[in-house]
């Protein structure tokens, strides 16, 4: 038994799973930045190997199910400590019993994975709504106006990728950036193509002059739509936790373009 340490990528994680089956059984799998080395426990830093990862990936799809693959991936995207071992346990059980793992909702291994996967999926769904773009604009060298939509989010889990499909379809003719300020990385998209990479927000152009007016319009609408006889802040916060409010236009000071970046 040995602890496997990987570089934090999904391929790295899958490589560790490969080692677990073809090398030495894993006591645990940990991303390098979260691992506490100890003299008593043997560990191995695993170098990510695309081929080994692909083998495990294909095996998950064919021997368990596509749904299981998706569930594992969502667990992997979560921010919870120990997620790697929850995913590993789920995989080991899945390879043993196959596709029927999907229905065993109350088995402790399945329950743990399902719960985390659901949290991640739920946050991604929530943020497709709770995300606000600002229009940034500048003129390029030839004096042509360029506009970029820019949104800043601070999700609990690493869900940028899960947002990509929805927004690239919806805004297929727009260039847009969704910046995860917690993980300092961003989703860049234009014309249905997208990639995820690092971003320094200070290089972005300034907000379009119209932006201020639209924010004010939205804030006015938002404040007016509430029925005074039914005010219910608890209900509001249940649906829209306060930790997301920072980046929501409707909770910012009226008409300001602050905090765009």
């Amino acid at each position, binding site marked *: 038994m040995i602890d496997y340490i990987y570089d934090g990528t999904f391929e790295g994680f899958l490589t560790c799973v490969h080692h677990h089956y073809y090398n030495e059984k894993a006591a645990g799998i940990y991303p390098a930045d979260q691992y506490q080395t100890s003299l008593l426990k043997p560990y191995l830093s695993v170098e990510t190997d695309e081929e080994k990862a692909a083998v495990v990936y294909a095996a998950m799809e064919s021997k368990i199910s596509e749904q299981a693959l998706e569930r594992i991936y969502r667990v992997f995207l979560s921010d919870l400590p120990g997620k790697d071992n929850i995913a590993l346990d789920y995989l080991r059980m899945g390879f043993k019993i196959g596709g029927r793992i999907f229905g*065993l909702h109350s088995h402790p291994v399945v329950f743990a994975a399902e719960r985390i996967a659901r949290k991640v999926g739920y946050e991604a769904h929530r943020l497709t709504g709770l995300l606000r773009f600002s229009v940034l604009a500048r003129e390029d060298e030839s004096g042509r106006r360029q506009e970029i939509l820019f949104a800043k989010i601070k999700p609990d889990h690493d869900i940028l990728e899960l947002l990509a499909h929805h927004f690239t379809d919806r805004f297929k003719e727009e260039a847009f950036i969704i910046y995860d300020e917690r993980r300092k990385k961003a989703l860049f998209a234009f014309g249905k193509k997208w990639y995820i990479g690092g971003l320094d927000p200070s290089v972005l152009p300034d907000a379009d002059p119209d932006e201020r007016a639209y924010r004010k319009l939205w804030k006015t609408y938002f404040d007016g739509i*509430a029925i005074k006889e*039914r005010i219910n802040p608890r209900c509001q916060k249940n649906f829209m936790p306060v930790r997301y409010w920072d980046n929501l236009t409707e909770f910012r000071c009226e008409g300001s373009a602050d905090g765009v970046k």
Partner: protein
Amino acid sequence: MEVLEKLRILGESAKYDASCATSGVARKNVGRMGNATCAGLCHSWSADGRCISLLKVLLSNDCVYDCQYCVNRRSVDVERATFEPEELADLAMGFYRRNYIEGLFLSSAVVKSPDHTAEKMLRCLQLLREVHGFAGYIHAKIIPGVSPELVRALGFLADRLSVNMELPSEKSLELLAPQKKAKNIFTPMGQITDSIANRKELSAGSGKKMLESSAEYLKPKETLDPEGEYPLVVRDGRKKYKEPFAPAGQSTQMIIGASPETDRQIIRLSESLYKKFRLKRVYFSAYIPVSDSALLPSRLTAPPLKREHRLYQADWLLRFYGFSAEEILDEKNPFLDERMDPKMAWALRHPEFFPMEVNKASLEELLRIPGVGAISARRILRQRRQSAVRFEDLQKLGVVVKRAKYFVTCRGRYYGDAELSDPNILRVLQIDDGEKQLSMF
């Protein structure tokens, strides 16, 4: 008048409309901007805890009608405003692009005449769809009395249409909204149902014929999304027609507490609307006193929020749990019990069905157990195929055990700390039993 002023006035005038759904249609971006997801999407929640998904505004609040319950009635002195269709289309696009909203909900007061108003609304929707290439969600309100040609034209641009009942009986309608005739409400409603049923051939205004033809309307079939968690409604045959008529169906709204109807009447009316007109949703809106009319509850009356809540629960029982209106409320019980949800009330009236063995009950039966919902019932079924469900599993399957345990057995064993026949069962269930016990004990 500035757009900001108009938005403030016309947003506030539209806020009493309860409909907010953006569900029922999945569409990729077939235009230049926008798409729709089947499950719907909320973008924000206002201070009253209601979701904001659509930009809900009136095109105008300058009304020629004088409905007693309405904030915009002719005889009251309020600020009046009217959007130009171009103005509103630009505003909606600006909001949509910033991901503030999921689409537009367009309603209006009656300016000059129903047809005049509908033409303006149509113009706005045309601008959105044809000029801006908008492929997001649109909900359009049909004003009673509008001509069938306009209903038809609006239906091809909007995803969902709605005609508001406003009051749950013809008598109340006559009393409080004399200009709105019941016939003018049911005719367009019937036309919409009919058009959705026969998408190819629209027979405008054939309210009566509709009743037979819509009986065969593609019945929504339940299926599960890829995650296997949430039941979605998927319709067959959607792709056959290039320009679907109101693909997300139609809904309506009733005001609760402005008129004397009982809950039983309201639930029965909802049921028949679902059955006859194939409505997707019936919304209830607790009446908030806005006038001193002698015909209405006084201004000091609190809005019946609890009642509205219970009615929605009953509505869920109709739509997702296989209950009939008669089961929810019978002649002896004209009002819903405010102390407990209607499913619990039903279960307590019918102890003969319980306790139910969770490992044997069918889906329909599982759905009758208090504390078991649509999702947990399906999880129980899925898990049962692999292994028996134990009592300890129930919580992990999403069952509210503190309620359900009095109504189930797991592998033959009963886990409740009191039986349903216990005279103190209400106290055990932590339902405030007030001074008197329920009559059945």
